[in-house]
């Protein structure tokens, strides 16, 4: 059983990676992905919100799909909510398996689905102006790859 955490404070992807590695038994591969807030502008911030209870439930459904498709020994998903600045981690996804391919593909799949199927809402604030961010066509196409 993996770990899912929605965090309203900054987390350390490095600490998460070490903790994940320490709890995985019998794995020959770990793949870990960290998404960070893009940009260098000092006045830019990103705000993520979620629907408590529902967001967790929908993410577990995504994980269940991945577990049906690949032999994953363990997984960990940490997702930020709240206000973030450029350079801060937004999401951490790690998967472990006996051989590498399952971990690579499962982590890729989890990220593609988190982008457009996990109940989060993202807005950007720059120069005092707020803009809602929706999935790009590329994000939707990335997810479609797994449906073919």
């Amino acid at each position, binding site marked *: 059983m993996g770990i899912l955490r929605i965090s309203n404070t900054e987390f350390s992807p490095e600490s998460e990676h070490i903790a994940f590695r320490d709890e995985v038994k019998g794995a020959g591969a770990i793949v870990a992905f960290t*998404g960070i807030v893009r940009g260098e502008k000092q006045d830019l911030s990103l705000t*993520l*919100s979620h*629907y408590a*209870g*529902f967001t967790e*439930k929908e993410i577990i459904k995504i994980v269940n799909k991945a577990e049906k498709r690949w032999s994953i020994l363990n997984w960990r998903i940490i*997702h930020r909510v709240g206000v973030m600045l450029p350079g801060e981690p*937004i*999401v951490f996804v790690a998967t472990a398996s006996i051989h590498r391919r399952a971990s690579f593909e499962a982590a890729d799949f989890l*990220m593609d689905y*988190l*982008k*457009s*199927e*996990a*109940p*989060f*809402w*993202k*807005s950007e604030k720059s120069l005092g102006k*707020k803009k*809602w*961010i*929706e*999935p790009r066509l590329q994000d939707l196409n990335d997810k479609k790859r797994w449906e073919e």
Partner: protein
Amino acid sequence: MITILFFGNLGDIFPTMEISLPPSVITIEDLTLWLSENMFISEKTLLKKGNRISINKNIITGNVSLKDGDEIAFMSPLSGG
């Protein structure tokens, strides 16, 4: 009472509501019509392509029945990661 939540950009436009289930509202379509007629929340905005609706934290499609105590959420397109 029913609770109506709005997420994403819909949450910028509309506040959370707790209301008694209006007698004319039997289904989710009745509710969107009632919101447009009584709360000036346009159906077009609520039902925009890419938006989702959940009842008691389950995504719904189609014209589902409502009951007292339901928590209804209108969501703009999801964007994680």
